[in-house]
């Protein structure tokens, strides 16, 4: 709770001091007589971005908060007189039988995806750092999942994993394994969407980690090799520690992306069967738009919980980064 109030306070301060120091310094150099008009100009230059931020970031966030604190029915949505109900929507959400499974699925989905995406991405980055022939071509191929529109990749996964006519079950059948109901069995649906999401997330990790590897000086490896360190030792003692800042930002960005993954799950399973692959993101959509009678309030409440979760991890990242910077 403390962090949430501290940091947003601090950020604008930093911006303001930045603007303030930037603005008066030129007048001192060129036109010391008219500081006010220069200041006006500075504000004018600042205005578009402030307006943009307020219109497209602050207002929607405020609206979402407002939605989640009022009891919206279709009638009060149209009349605009929804009564303020405090945290009632949040209580509804917490008491919902879907809450516990959705929380668990969100946590599992995010954790498993992050671990695998990062591990596979790092392994591939180290692999491609060897600069062998065709490595550039191969690396480009690994980017394909990232370039495809999500609706295309998710639909393709959904076809491949189809219980009766999917290619995965056909392949399993060929090697004598019983078919698996990937998308239609409650025990497999979450696994299926995790697999698809890992596939989509690997290229991002690969690219960022690969560029991180470029910045590690080759001399370090040469020195370590002279000292008799093997490949394994070189990885754990040089690559991994020096890659830590890049890893941290990769994982943080990955976390934010993964928390809000919606398209893949919705296209592949609609969060089902029987809520077995429902995460907060799909649940929020389901509440707000998945029904003929929208429940805007609880839907917005779930969305806000997601925002808070991402914010908490963002703050953890800032704190870790500050510690690293200080040390």
């Amino acid at each position, binding site marked *: 709770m403390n962090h949430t109030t501290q940091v947003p306070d601090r950020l604008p301060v930093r911006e303001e001091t930045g603007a303030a120091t930037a603005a008066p310094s030129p007048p001192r150099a060129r036109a010391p007589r008219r500081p006010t008009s220069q200041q006006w100009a500075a504000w004018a230059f600042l205005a578009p971005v402030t307006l943009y931020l307020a219109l497209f970031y602050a207002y929607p966030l405020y609206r979402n908060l407002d939605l989640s604190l009022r009891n919206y029915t279709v009638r009060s949505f*149209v009349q605009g007189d929804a009564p303020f109900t405090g945290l009632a929507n949040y209580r509804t959400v917490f008491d919902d039988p879907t809450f516990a499974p959705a929380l668990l699925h969100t946590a599992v989905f995010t954790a498993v995806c992050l671990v695998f995406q990062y591990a596979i991405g790092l392994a591939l980055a180290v692999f491609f750092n060897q600069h062998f022939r065709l490595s550039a071509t191969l690396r480009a191929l690994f980017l394909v999942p990232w370039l495809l529109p999500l609706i295309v990749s998710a639909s393709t996964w959904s076809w491949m994993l*189809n219980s009766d006519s999917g290619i995965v079950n056909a392949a399993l059948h060929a090697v004598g394994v019983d078919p698996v109901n990937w998308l239609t069995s409650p025990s497999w649906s979450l696994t299926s969407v995790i697999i698809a999401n890992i596939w989509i997330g690997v290229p991002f990790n690969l690219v960022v980690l690969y560029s991180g590897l470029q910045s590690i000086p080759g001399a370090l490896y040469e020195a370590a090799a002279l000292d008799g360190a093997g490949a394994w030792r070189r990885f754990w003692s040089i690559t991994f520690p020096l890659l830590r800042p890049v890893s941290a930002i990769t994982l943080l960005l990955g976390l934010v992306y993964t928390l809000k993954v919606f398209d893949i799950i919705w296209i592949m399973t609609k969060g089902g069967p029987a809520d077995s692959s429902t995460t907060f993101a799909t649940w929020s959509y389901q509440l707000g738009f998945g*029904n*003929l009678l929208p429940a805007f309030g609880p839907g917005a409440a779930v969305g806000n919980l997601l925002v808070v979760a991402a914010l908490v991890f963002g703050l953890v990242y800032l704190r870790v980064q500050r510690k690293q910077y200080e040390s």
Partner: protein
Amino acid sequence: MNRSTRRRLTAAAMTVVAVATGTTACSSGSGSTSAKADGGAYTIWDPYPQFDKSSDWAKLLDDCGTKAGVKIKRTAFDTSDLSNKALLAAQQDNSADVLIVDNPVVSTLAEAGVLTTTDDNKLDTSKVDPNLLAAGQSGGKTYGTPVGANTLALYYNKEVLKEAGVDIGSVKDWKSLTAALAKVEKAGKKGITFSAIGTEEGSFQFLPWFWGSGAQLTDLDSAEAVSALSLWKGWLDKGYAPNSVLNNTQTTSWQEFASGDYAFAENGTWQLAGAKKAGFDYGVVPVPNATGGNAAAPTGGEFVTIPVQGDTGRYATSQKLVSCLTSSENLLVTDTTLSYVAPTSEVQDKQVAANAELKPWVDAVKAAKGRTSDDLGTKYPKISEQLWKAVQSALSGSKSPEDALATAQSAAK
């Protein structure tokens, strides 16, 4: 307070846009209609984006406008988009003059106070089949008139049934249908495909069986309801229906049937055109109910409604427009283009006379029932959500049909 300032803001914004783009913003005057930048034209919103300006539908709208002495401004939306758009427009007091929406949405919009009743707008609905009109009624009031109806029935593949030695005449109830599926399966073909997806489509497809068992939507965990869900579950367990039904939309389910391997498919009137292209001989029978006879299938199709306007003087012209759109001769044209069954028996007879293939569909529509009927209104969306969840839980094996429906009933209350 809040609302009026917002309205003023919208009006101001619209005016600015109109002036800036240099359109014919002939000083739209003051008052609540100022939100409509195009003062003289009457706006019509429909969910038929497949019809462009040159289509019969668009021409019909223009003709009706000419007859009523006004210009028509038509906007077509995607069906799933339209209800949200209509709510937003109503929030901004910028509703269309005539709104054509999917029938289960009518009660939601009526609840929101967006639609006028037939008492206010003087629409004549006396010729419309009462079972179809019921979908647009709640609290004893009627909120529009159907433009046409569609519903579900069973398509069957004649070749597959012949190979399996099944006579379609023998399929009269659930028992004989299951027996037919067993024969088909023995002959090495696939039984039946439908859509049990976790959306409104899943409930829509389950309802003929649900109602065919004698169950009521107000009592989801009755013994009859359990028997309907057990029927589907049994088909999946025995392999008469593929496991993929859990993820099938009605379109993917149709694609499975169109592959030619399936004996039966539960699907709608709108697939008739596709059926002709499928390349095999097909027939259509109504969905049977548990003990013989036709089950009530849910009605699909849209309602023509007149949204509430700030300027009540517009209703008279809107009423003329709607009456023109739903006059017998125009209904025939519209429902033929949409591949719908007409909502009045007079036009239904003409349709069957023109195309005998429509006969089973007309019968099915006559037996059909609106999802929001029985005065369920806005309770239906909640019930439906629990119903499709129960179907998904039972078919995927995470719960027994009894438990799934018991959970659904307690959640829907």
